[in-house]
């Protein structure tokens, strides 16, 4: 097909092109080379993490004093070994499991809770809005890193507590975005028209608000995944997230820190993974944003 097939105010003579909104978004996304490449890389990393036992060349916990801190490209250890002689490639693949879990799941939980709060605040307005949004503003007073450290420190170290801490950190920004988008949409005439046709609030939210609000919230949340991964790594680095035997990129970065002078390239590998995934999510969310942004 030619480049421009999706234009506003199509002339009356155009044939019926019945393509859904998401169909259009998907088609535009497919034309975005950068976003597509990012999606591909992220998918590859995700699949490798999921199927780690099948993909990884070695046992992630098998240590060997003799093989400590081998350089990249050593025979049998493609990406070298860490300070306990464990295979880096294996640990990077296994580390993806926890790191992606800590990156994605807090954002998903926060997406559900934050959108709910934000949409209700935006749609109902008035005192309800004030109550919800001012409470959320309290959380905004703290820098997100500090808040995450404080909450998971208070709850105690561990993956579950770190997840809770990160979820709490991400609810306020998502709720804020949800509230502002909902307030905007609520003022449009089609919502008034829906109300004038006698529809109840939940029907209006379901049919008319959600579809117009979830897109921007989703795009924003996608960009938070990278932040979440970095924060999770930070928590692990501080000893508040994952515990030592487990493989997790932030924790690996922490333990390899001592080897930064002897094997700098090996020590940098977990950081590189975090970087790739964060950049991937950021660029993908940028692509998603522009793919969704055509009609206005």
């Amino acid at each position, binding site marked *: 097909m030619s480049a421009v097939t999706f234009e*506003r*105010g*199509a*002339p*009356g003579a*155009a*044939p*019926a*092109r*019945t393509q859904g*909104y998401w169909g259009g978004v998907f088609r535009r996304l497919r034309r975005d080379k950068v976003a597509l490449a990012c999606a591909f890389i992220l998918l590859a990393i995700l699949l490798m993490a999921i199927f780690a036992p099948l993909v990884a060349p070695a046992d992630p916990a098998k240590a060997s004093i003799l093989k400590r801190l081998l350089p990249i490209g050593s025979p049998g250890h493609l990406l070298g070994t860490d300070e306990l002689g464990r295979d880096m490639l294996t640990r990077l693949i296994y580390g993806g499991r926890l790191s992606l879990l800590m990156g994605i799941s807090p954002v998903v939980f926060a997406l559900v809770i934050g959108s709910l709060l934000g949409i209700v605040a935006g749609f109902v307005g008035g005192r309800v809005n004030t109550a919800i949004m001012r409470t959320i503003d309290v959380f905004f007073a703290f820098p997100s890193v500090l808040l995450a450290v404080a909450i998971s420190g208070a709850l105690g170290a561990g993956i579950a507590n770190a997840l809770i801490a990160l979820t709490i950190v991400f609810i306020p920004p998502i709720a804020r975005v949800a509230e502002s988008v909902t307030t905007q949409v609520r003022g*449009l*005439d*089609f919502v*008034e*028209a*829906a*109300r*004038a*046709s*006698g*529809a*109840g609030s939940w*029907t209006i939210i379901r*049919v*008319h608000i959600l*579809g*117009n609000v979830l897109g921007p919230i989703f795009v924003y949340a996608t960009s938070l995944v990278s932040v979440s991964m970095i924060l999770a790594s930070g928590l692990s680095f501080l000893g508040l997230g994952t515990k030592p035997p487990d493989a997790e990129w932030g924790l690996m970065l922490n333990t390899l820190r001592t080897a930064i002078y002897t094997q700098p390239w090996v020590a940098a590998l977990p950081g590189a993974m975090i970087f790739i995934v964060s950049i991937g999510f950021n660029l993908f969310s940028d692509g998603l944003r522009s793919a969704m942004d055509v*009609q*206005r």
Partner: protein
Amino acid sequence: MSAIAMPLLQVRELVKRFPLKGGMFARGGGVVHAVDGVSFGVDRGETLGIVGESGCGKSTTARLLVRLIDPDDGRVLLEGREIGHPGGMPVNEARRAMQMVFQDSFASLNPRLTVEASIAFGPRVHGVADADARGRAHDLLRKVGLEPGRFAARYPHELSGGQRQRVNIARALALAPQVVILDEAVSALDKSVEAQVLNLLLDLKADLGLTYIFISHDLNVVQYVSDRVMVMYLGKVVEIGPVGRIYADAAHPYTKALLSAMPTMDPAHRTQAPPLAGDPPNPIDPPSGCRFRTRCPFAEDLCAAREPVLGETEAGHRVACHMANAGSGHSKAPPLARAA
């Protein structure tokens, strides 16, 4: 035509005030008198045009009628039953019987819904089965001149402004309303498209036996579609009457000023001077007595002291001006004898 003497829609002393929000620490701000004691009636099958400057309360009146906002005072009766009053007509039933078409054709359609889904939404909400609602949507599309096979599955951004407004009209008709309120419904369209949509509206009215309330700032359009015209100024009705009377022989100085500002095709009759100077006064603190007196060339002391009532000068023609009311005391008022 008039089997029953009672008008289809009766509006009595409708009042809406918007308190000014001054934030948490600035309580007791002013109150905007958006609609201040508006009364009128609309007969079955007629078109009532409402004209006035921006901010005079036209749109607020429309929104009050369909209860998008709640009135502070006053009553609205549809078929003699008071809306939202126990024993009267429930608000939801009234909403079904009175539908609205808005000015912005793009904002009034959900960009994520197909044309068909937008039109079928209302009936579905009222419990019409899915297939029936879709069938009704297709019928309505045909009625508004859009071939369902080509347009039903389209999204709003794939339509032109005129097509979108036709969809909005179809959507308003989907609940089989008795009264359709057209709030500047054709104002945003090109002149040629506007004419097509106007004619469509007139055809639909004849076909379906509709009653229109037609709100516009375009006096030519109002003259073309209306049977009667109501002129509003600062939340009040200043004049109401048959379209011929209003356009030929307006009694209120504000109406005269509005009409003299109407663009004319005849170069010999172009207006020379702006007939009305300045903006309308602040609705937070309207002038005492007659609200128009600050811009009225005939204002006298009386106008500041006493508010003119909406008095009937002739059958069906009512004017809120001391000059039109016999015995009001205004120097230009007709002698009292005529009234008796």
